[in-house]
């Protein structure tokens, strides 16, 4: 047992830190550190920088051009990026669809799609949820009928994060209504420029358009875009879900945001108010405990011993922490978090903000926005069902 990283791991961390320091554009880091609005360009610029280095697919094995890092190395990479203020990697391409293509796609598909994902050039979206499906992902209704060399796709996806920027979308589609709902699902890659695809952004409670509805109206999709076998899509989808692991806890981001919370508390004069300070202290304990939980998972992966089946716990605790720091930031500013000036969330905005503290502009919006974290990716209620199942049988 040892809390410290090995000298090799520490050297790895240093090398990542140095590279990120040299390569992360300052304007992007500024936005991330202050929760300002990120543009499509910001996100893609960073993705391409990583892509050029070969690190956009930082979790990829070497045979597909990834760095072949260990679980610990991946964690250290994520941590250094997060603490430096890098945007989160948009996961739909490199983290979600790529592993499915590697595992179940054929060679042609791999050669066709992986390079664009690895380079950050092609923006992928996720087409899982449908109106009314909620946590019941297997209730897929979007139909794909095989007609010769293509599928004809009709239906609707929703909650498609950043889908307004998407160039390709991977979808669960229903190719059969026989048997259990899970058995008739296929995994299809769809070019969003195809005729019949339309995207409608959904405005969220914070005023931003982060998710979308995607409509398919007689969309022709070449049969060669089917991953693996028809009606086996559920298996591939589960594989994908199992690939979101420790990063689900987002503890590195939480550490960065805890620092920001402390800065805000100081600026707002509540850092020395023991009543408020205690709330930060409780959160600090939460963050450290979550980090230790994450490290235990990493250690188990590293050694292959004592594997820990606690993804549900990571999701629950991680999301609660995200909501809590956002809440405390907002409460720290109090009345000066209440003005809603959308333009003030743009970097470099020159207008006035009440109290002169333009850094307060995104606080309430972030608090509102992060209410999603206990809902998406399997709501925390679903996660508790899963945890209870592992404990109680």
């Amino acid at each position: 047992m040892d809390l410290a990283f090995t000298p090799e791991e520490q050297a790895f961390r240093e090398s990542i830190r140095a590279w990120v320091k040299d390569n992360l554009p300052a304007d992007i880091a500024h936005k991330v550190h202050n929760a300002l609005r990120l543009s499509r360009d910001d996100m893609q610029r960073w993705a391409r920088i990583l892509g050029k280095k070969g690190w956009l697919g930082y979790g990829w094995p070497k045979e597909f051009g990834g760095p072949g890092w260990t679980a610990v190395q991946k964690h250290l990479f994520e941590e250094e990026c997060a603490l430096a203020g890098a945007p989160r990697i948009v996961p739909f391409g490199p983290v979600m669809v790529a592993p499915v293509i590697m595992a179940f796609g054929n060679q042609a598909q791999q050669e066709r799609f992986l390079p664009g994902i690895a380079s950050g050039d092609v923006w992928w979206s996720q087409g899982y949820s449908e109106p009314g499906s909620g946590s019941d992902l297997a209730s897929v209704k979007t139909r794909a009928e095989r007609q010769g060399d293509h599928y004809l796709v009709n239906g609707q996806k929703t909650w498609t994060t950043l889908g307004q920027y998407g160039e390709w979308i991977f979808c669960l589609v229903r190719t059969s209504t026989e048997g259990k709902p899970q058995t008739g699902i296929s995994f299809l890659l769809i070019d969003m420029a195809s005729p019949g695809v339309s995207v409608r952004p959904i405005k969220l409670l914070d005023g931003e358009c982060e998710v979308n509805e995607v409509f398919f109206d007689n969309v022709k999709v070449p049969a060669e875009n089917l991953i693996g076998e028809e009606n086996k899509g559920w298996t591939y989808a589960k594989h994908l879900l199992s690939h979101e692991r420790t990063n689900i806890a987002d503890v590195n981001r939480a550490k960065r945001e805890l620092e920001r919370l402390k800065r805000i508390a100081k600026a707002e004069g509540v850092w020395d108010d023991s009543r408020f300070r205690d709330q930060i202290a409780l959160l600090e304990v939460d963050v450290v405990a979550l980090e230790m939980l994450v490290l235990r998972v990493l250690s188990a992966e590293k050694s292959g011993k004592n594997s820990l089946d606690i993804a549900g716990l990571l999701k629950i605790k991680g999301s609660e922490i995200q909501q809590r720091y956002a809440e405390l930031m907002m409460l720290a500013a109090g009345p000066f978090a209440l003005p809603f000036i959308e333009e003030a969330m743009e970097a470099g905005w020159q207008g006035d903000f009440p109290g002169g503290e333009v850094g307060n502009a995104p606080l309430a919006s972030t608090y509102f926005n992060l209410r999603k974290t206990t809902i998406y990716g399997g709501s925390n209620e679903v996660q508790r069902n899963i945890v209870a199942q592992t404990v109680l049988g």
Partner: protein
Amino acid sequence: MDFDFSDDQEQLRDAVRKWVDKGYDFERRRGIVATGGFNRAAYGELADLGLTGLYVPEADDGMGMGPVEGMVAMEELGRGIVLEPLVQALIAGAVLSGYAPAALKAQWLPGVASGESLVALAHQERRARYRLDVCTATATEAGGAWALSGTKSIVAVGDQADAYIVPAMAGGRQALFLVAHTAGGVSASGYATQDGGRAADVVFRNAPAHLITTDGLAALEHAVDIGIAAACAEAVGVMDKTLAITVEYLNTRKQFGVAIASFQALRHRVADMKMQLELARSMSYYASLKLNAPANERRAAMARAKVQLGQSMRFVGQQAVQLHGGIGVTDEYIVSHYFKKLTQLEMSWGDTLHHLGEVSARMEETAGVFA
């Protein structure tokens, strides 16, 4: 000890509820949000209902009514998350009638009652947070005329108000003034607020001011306490409707083939929401019924009430969104607007931690409703 409403109070409730249901639906509200968060016509409709004059004495063309009527009105406006800030009329009515010299009353109170004059409390300063005894604005007298200087933030509908009630230091002591918007040296820059409403920063530069009272802190505390009681009542209305919306959703929405209202974990969450709502309603009654008590007793009661309401609002708002799932975080669906209103109300007139500090500082040996 009696918590029944009189027939007149029930009629008032019915009238406001009818207006909210028929005259202030979600679409109209959405339009008002889109056009700045305040609609003078809607404010006029509140006046037509007699609401702006509730706390204005009959002699000054008002209704001369009391806290219970204020509570009833605020609850119903809360149910419709009405943006127009009736609470400002309640404060202006009570503060001017209670503390201002006769001439000032005669000049402003009839307009407050009729809705023609919108008088807003402008007390929030950058470094004060929720404290009322921190005030850097100053007022100086010369030849019987006062001039006021300072900056006040987050003033409700501050860019569209006709006058402000402003605390400022005069001779080392906080006094309360009335400043007309049209007076020289007043500039207001308005903005939207998170709940969809409107506020402004107001800068006074040697603005001509009328003295309301030199006992400004006492009057300001009274004003804020009216704000607290009103916020409590409004929050009860908001939460009542929030719970109703959530219940309807749970009974309608199906997942895995059954209504999600059938899941015990969600049912218990609803029971907890109901608990928070009823505790909140109880403490809203308490706040309004203590609003005319002696200042010390009144202040203690408001702090207790706001702590309960703050906890209730946060729980009910957050859980309502959670129980809705994805649709709960959209702008399109109504529940997120209720959640945002609750969030803003918690941070109005002092948040939960602030008032917990007040309760803690004021604790006596005995406690209870009558202690």
